């Protein structure tokens, strides 16, 4: 089920009703949420429920063992194995095809053609997210930050909780498991926040992001050489807005749904295009991923504790893997490389520490946009054509319309709003009576439905 569909809406309402009916019975409540999460996941493809369950049970069992052991070589081995198996599963499903294709390419060029096992491995939805959560579970237990005695239901629910299962945010074991110890308590401000986040997320996704994608970004990125300068420039800005709205919308809806069910997830985006340096950017963009990489990859590698050379190496490895995590393609790796290079350069020149001006904001934004071209383009040739093929640069505007330009400006303009505007609005809303809120909510739903495009955009080309 995709979030912005009626099917999910009905599903969520049913789950919401039953969950709060089971109010004080925490055990049954968690079991209900677990079953609901598997129904949600099974809706995509029932065959992968088995994999999800196996991954969750495996991580729980390993966590039990590791948590009850003392510091020893065997314990270290078990931790290593657990992480390896999680990554192995992710690696197989996500990167097998990429690996085989490139191996075939390489062998072909060397003249050593082989009959390689060309399998079409179907990517289980959300595997990037739930394997990372599994690894978080193991490592948080190892560090003593999470309780290894957590029950099986708790652990399984942590890994497969439906709001964050498919598109994040990547929730940490130490943040979520304690919340499962007792039945949550509702507060009106939290409910208001949840409602606002869901509505705002739906608007960003179905109105801003979809419109920009279908009207401007997709057509220009298919054949960039055919388009003029203005179309191409606005397609890049448009994509920056689209990917921000798309991603942050899913996170917002996830956080909102969790809030309505009584659980708290951390913010995942914080007006990222306001960043005045790359270091700042990664504190604002996909926060759950960047903190995960920082805590579980960068710091264990040594972080910035070693000399400049080792810091640089650690940073680059982290960014390259972060890039590759987004998808099995060289362009994602290149995107990670650009960000890594930018971070390294910042560090080397001490830019992050010096006073940052609006110029830094503009420059950071544009380098981020340059990297987005690589992220979005299906291959290097398209990205190269996009950036360097000036033969049609004088072409008149074909795709950009006043509305699309307006949406791009709006998307960027959102970053000028007060950073904690939604919280303030939630506090205000909490004081209103329920019919008033219902009127606001209903109007918002009707508005969103009136503006959105009919049908759901197909995942033709990329899927996280």
């Amino acid at each position: 089920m995709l979030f912005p569909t009626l099917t999910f809406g009905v599903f969520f309402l049913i789950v919401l009703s039953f969950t709060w009916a089971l109010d004080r019975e925490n055990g049954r409540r968690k079991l209900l949420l677990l079953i609901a999460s598997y129904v949600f996941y099974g809706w995509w493809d029932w065959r992968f429920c088995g994999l999800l369950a196996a991954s969750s049970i495996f991580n729980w069992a390993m966590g039990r063992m590791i948590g009850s052991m003392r510091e020893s070589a065997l314990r270290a081995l078990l931790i290593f194995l657990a992480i390896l198996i999680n990554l192995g599963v992710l690696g197989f499903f996500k990167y097998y095809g990429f690996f085989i294709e490139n191996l075939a390419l390489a062998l072909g060029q060397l003249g050593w053609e082989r009959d390689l096992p060309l399998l079409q491995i179907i990517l289980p939805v959300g595997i990037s997210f739930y394997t990372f959560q599994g690894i978080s579970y193991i490592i948080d237990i190892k560090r003593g930050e999470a309780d290894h005695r957590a029950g099986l239901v708790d652990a399984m629910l942590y890994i497969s909780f439906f709001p964050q299962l498919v598109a994040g945010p990547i929730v940490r074991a130490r943040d979520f498991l304690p919340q499962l110890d007792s039945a949550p308590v509702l507060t009106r401000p939290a409910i208001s926040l949840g409602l606002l986040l869901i509505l705002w997320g739906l608007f960003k996704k179905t109105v801003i992001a979809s419109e920009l994608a279908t009207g401007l970004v997709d057509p220009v990125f298919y054949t960039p050489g055919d388009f003029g300068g203005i179309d191409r420039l606005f397609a890049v800005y448009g994509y920056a807005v689209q990917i921000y709205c798309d991603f942050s919308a899913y996170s917002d809806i996830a956080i909102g749904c969790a809030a309505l069910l009584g659980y708290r997830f951390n913010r995942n985006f914080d007006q990222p295009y306001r960043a005045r340096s790359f270091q700042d950017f990664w504190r604002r963009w996909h926060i759950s991923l960047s903190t995960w990489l920082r805590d579980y990859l960068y710091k264990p590698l040594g972080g910035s504790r070693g000399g400049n050379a080792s810091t640089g190496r650690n940073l680059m490895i982290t960014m390259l893997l972060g890039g590759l995590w987004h998808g099995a393609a060289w362009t994602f790796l290149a995107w990670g490389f650009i960000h890594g290079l930018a971070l390294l350069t910042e560090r080397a020149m001490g830019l992050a520490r010096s006073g940052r001006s609006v110029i830094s904001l503009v420059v950071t934004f544009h380098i981020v946009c340059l990297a987005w071209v690589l992220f979005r383009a299906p291959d290097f040739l398209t990205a190269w054509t996009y950036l360097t093929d000036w033969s049609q640069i004088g072409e008149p505007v074909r795709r950009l319309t006043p509305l699309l330009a307006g949406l791009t400006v709006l998307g960027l303009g959102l970053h000028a709003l007060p950073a904690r505007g939604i919280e303030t609005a939630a506090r205000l809303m909490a004081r209103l009576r329920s019919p008033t809120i219902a009127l606001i909510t209903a109007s918002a739903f009707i508005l969103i439905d009136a503006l959105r495009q009919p049908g759901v955009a197909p995942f033709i080309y990329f899927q996280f």
Partner: protein
Amino acid sequence: MSDDPHRDDLFDPSEDEIDHHRARLWLSHIVVITVVLVAAFNPVSLERWAASNPPSWGVETVRLTVRVWTDRMQLAGLNTPRDWITARWNALKSVRWEDLEQDDSAGEAEATETPPPPAQG
């Protein structure tokens, strides 16, 4: 969750158990009224959802029921606000740069013409 002070207070549970029940009641009122309002003022989305599924006894039952509901709501004119918004939005989508360059009155006339079908990309 401690690194987000702006949100902390929103989730702070009240000491009083009664507040939790009141909040729950408040939420259930909101949900019920919202569902009724949306069903009344935007029934066409339900109908479209039912229509998009392959026909079977269950789907057709839902669809035809929703169809009757939609007809009645439309008769009462409840779909007018939504349709008006969609029409204005489509008009806005079909505005081109050339239209803006002309003077306001001519631009208005263009914007209210039947818009071309949106280029589905």
